């Protein structure tokens, strides 16, 4: 595995200021991400997980600290949100195509690539459907395809399966795992589910309750590719216990 860091975050702090109150969301967060690593941030709600992701995505300015990308160019980012966050006026195909449109990629190539991704996330036959006709799981698949189409350097996933029902969620873990196996992106996933973190990640970082600090940095040594029943092994159970103990 390539061990050069792809992303180095140093002493990152984020403070939200209201009219008369200050809210420290993140405090002195430091970590490094290896290229092609699947890292998961685990923490209770209010631990600033989403804030961290938004800071990495450039959606908010950190109050202090640095976020240093080492991709040799401004990083291309693919992002999946808690809600599918699709454009309701665009068909499935056109939603997936959006990042390429923004990069002014040739229409035919974009079309071709979109079809590939529709294949990858298993939405064949729904190319021309509109978001309102999709189930929650299908809509989130569109979101994932859209986050991958422009071949991003960094994939940011913000509790992407939180809004799905339990069965769909577990099926999506498997699918995401397979997609990662095929694409090998550097991934940051934010979640409050221990199972989700362990099933998907190479490494799990546990955040504390507000203000968010890193409490535990755990390598997940489970073999890949991971099948569904890995969750019932004793190794999985032990790691889960460690994580559970770290979460307040």
């Amino acid at each position: 595995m390539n061990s050069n860091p792809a992303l180095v975050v140093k002493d990152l702090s984020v403070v939200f200021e209201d009219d008369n109150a200050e809210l420290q969301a993140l405090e002195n967060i430091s970590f490094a991400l290896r290229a092609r690593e699947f890292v998961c941030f685990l923490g209770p709600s209010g631990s600033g997980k989403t804030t961290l992701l938004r800071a990495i995505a450039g959606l908010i300015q950190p109050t202090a600290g640095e976020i240093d990308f080492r991709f040799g160019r401004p990083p291309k980012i693919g992002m999946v949100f808690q809600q599918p966050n699709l454009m309701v006026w665009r068909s499935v195909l056109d939603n997936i195509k959006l990042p390429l449109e923004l990069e002014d990629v040739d229409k035919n190539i974009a079309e071709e690539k979109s079809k590939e991704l529709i294949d990858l996330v298993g939405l064949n036959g729904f190319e021309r459907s509109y978001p309102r006709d999709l189930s929650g799981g299908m809509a989130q698949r569109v979101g994932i395809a859209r986050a991958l189409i422009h071949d991003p350097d960094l994939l940011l996933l913000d509790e992407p399966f939180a809004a799905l029902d339990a069965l769909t969620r577990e099926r999506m873990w498997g699918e995401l795992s397979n997609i990662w196996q095929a694409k090998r992106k550097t991934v940051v996933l934010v979640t409050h589910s221990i199972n989700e973190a362990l099933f998907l990640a190479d490494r799990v970082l546990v955040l504390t309750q507000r203000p968010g600090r890193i409490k535990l940095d755990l390598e997940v040594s489970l073999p890949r590719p991971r099948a569904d029943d890995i969750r019932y092994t004793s190794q999985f159970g032990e790691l889960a216990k460690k994580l559970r103990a770290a979460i307040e």
Partner: protein
Amino acid sequence: MMKTFFTRYLGIISIVFAIPIWQLIVRLSGLPKFILPSPLDVYLRFVTAVTDGSLLIHTGHTLLEILLGLFFGACFATILGYFLAKSRALEKILAPYLVASQAIPIVAVAPLLILWFGSGLAPKVLICALIVFFPVLVNTIVGVRAVPPALYDLMKALKATRWQILFKLELPASLPVLLGGLRIGATLSVIGAIVGELVNAKQGLGFLLKVGDFQYDTAMVFVAILMLITLALSLYGIVTLLEKKFLKWMK
């Protein structure tokens, strides 16, 4: 089958029934032609007005005012509305004027505008634009503010430019509300043009209305009114067609 057929053509059926009733009222009441012309009188007046070419000229003139007024009013309102939606400060500064401008009936300022800008095309276009302005402005503000914030996040994460955000997010996201404003504006624009022409004009359907009124040519007044209704309905229909074309996803 029968039921859908009826509901579909109910509008036409109601008109078909209204005309004989109108004719009957004229016949029974014995009102003179200059008070209430019969449908036949109106039709005959319509034919002469078409054949001597006057109706076409006047309708064309009014239509030109309407289209120009609608165009300038809607464009300016959309642009200003966009900036107002983006800036609370700007909204606070301009809100009193905008609301006040709506409190003044357009009929009251029309003579003033004619006084300032003469009796030509310009003041009528201006009145038309003014009346179109407000509904389009309000809908633009509502529409742009309703764009989901999460989609802005998406666009920013993808490093979209300002123009891309405008054309690929804000415009399509607010289009249903924008077209709703245009639909209201389109029907109001007809009123604007007529108000201007009634105050002072040498051409147009409003001028025709006034002349018909002065000369007790009431059938002509009816013809002019029917033309106005036709114009308003056509504009409304065009906006509806635009909605059908651009808002397929809503069906």
